[in-house]
């Protein structure tokens, strides 16, 4: 509790310092936090009551961005986990596909944006493709890793009891792979935020990223800062939600397996 308190006191303190410094220096690039807050309020929270006080920008841009983000993440999760479990349990299949997968993973996802732009035209579908392709690999490779290393005792016990195939996959392999899968999901969540912004910065006028660019071009720096803060808040909230879910789902796991910070790759 005291640590919590300390933390927020420092946070508020820094905010105050930032406010004082920015008001004092009056640099147009660095508007004071109060201006940013005001801009954020005007942008997103000044709507009519029947729309829950949210503005049209929220419904048009922020919601669209979030839909693409979560949609892409969900698709990548389903595809990555199912293929990952299949490959993880079949050594032969993994040997055939391994090198291709390793190479695909190594491609920096933004490099494929031009390819997707041509294949899918500019629009939601291209953005979704960019996100899915970019974040599939951490999920897929982590799932393979998790599915491959199921405890030998569990494998043999299930064989002895002739556990049916469906139950074997859902009841034994999936839970054993769960910690690694969650690690992959977490990496891909922060990556999906990046790719969402990247895909919105090229040739579209819809979404948080596009709004950010617009604000910069119109020299509306308070709005631009508000957009950056919003992206940080979205990232923070989504990550916290995933952590809560992870703790719920993995509560039964021995502690050290999933408390490793290895998955701290943020882009």
């Amino acid at each position, binding site marked *: 509790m005291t640590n919590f308190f300390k933390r927020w006191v420092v*946070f508020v303190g820094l905010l105050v310092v930032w406010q004082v410094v920015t008001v004092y220096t009056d640099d147009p*690039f660095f508007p004071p936090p109060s201006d940013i807050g005001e801009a954020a309020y005007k942008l997103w929270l000044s709507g009519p009551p029947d729309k829950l006080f949210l503005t049209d920008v929220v419904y048009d841009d922020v919601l669209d961005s979030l839909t693409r983000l979560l949609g892409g993440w969900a698709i990548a999760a389903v595809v990555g986990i199912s293929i990952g479990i299949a490959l993880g349990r079949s050594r032969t299949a993994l040997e*055939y596909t391994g090198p291709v997968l390793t190479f695909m993973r190594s491609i*920096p996802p*933004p490099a494929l944006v031009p390819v997707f732009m*041509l294949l899918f035209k500019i629009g939601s579908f291209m953005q979704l493709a960019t996100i899915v392709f970019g974040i599939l690999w951490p999920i897929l490779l982590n799932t393979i890793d998790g599915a491959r290393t199921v405890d030998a005792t569990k494998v043999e016990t299930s064989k002895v009891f002739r556990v049916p195939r469906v139950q074997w996959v859902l009841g034994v392999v999936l839970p054993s792979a769960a910690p690694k899968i969650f690690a992959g999901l977490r990496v891909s969540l922060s990556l999906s935020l990046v790719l969402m912004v990247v895909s919105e910065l090229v040739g579209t006028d819809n979404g948080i990223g596009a709004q950010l660019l617009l604000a*910069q071009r119109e020299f509306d720096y308070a709005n631009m800062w508000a957009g950056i803060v919003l992206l940080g808040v979205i990232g923070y909230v989504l990550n916290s939600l995933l952590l809560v879910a992870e703790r719920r789902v993995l509560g039964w796991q021995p502690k050290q397996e999933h408390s490793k910070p290895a998955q701290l790759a943020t882009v």
Partner: protein
Amino acid sequence: MRALTRGVLGVVGFLILWELFGRFGFVSAQYLPPPSVVFGELGKLLGDEQFLRDVIATVLSLLIAVGVAVGIAVPLGLLLGSVPAVRYATRAVVEFLRPIPSVATIPLAIMLIGIGPETKISLAVYAAIWPILFNTIYALDELDPLLVETAKVFGTGRVGVMFSVALPSALPFVFTGIRLAATTALVVLVSVELLLGGSPGLGQFIMVARSGAGRMDLVLAGTVVAGVLGYLLNEGLERAQQRWFGWDTAIGGRS
């Protein structure tokens, strides 16, 4: 050896599938040129000085970015990891800064730094700091108290413990952080080059090839080179980690 054969077969199968995809016109060959065309083009590019310069520019920026990130993140990690008060105090700030995607700050970076190579390097540094910082802090948490106390008994001071006990035992974790940071930095560099242009590099090459003549064969050739770079980076650092830190049984972190 059999695993290798299968791997090669897998790659060949993938290329044949891609080739057929274009040949039978599922997708226009103009949009997705078959590998025979792409690799032919790639062969030409590798002899092209301008292209090689672009690649070198990206690699150099990457090395600078990772170097600067290490220089900032390791000392900061040691500080935050060994002084709990500072760490709790800064946690809210760190938690707030970390989830901001580096590409979201591109507009900000344009006005503050301009559109030269400094911009992409600064953004890559920002992105690369986090994995190194967190792995360093985590490593100090995992520090064996027995080692620290032994050192203290033998009269080692606080600073001595830091450099002769904490740092060596944290190194494997730090290195994992550096590996993650390097791949992350490459992603950011290529994105910024793509979105911003302004400085020579692989990303800019890809964007110019697309927007100018719509040469998708060049775009894909550039993408293949980017993939090879990413692969070499990750593989090289992984090998180095195994070689230098093979003694460490629990190598911390994974991608």
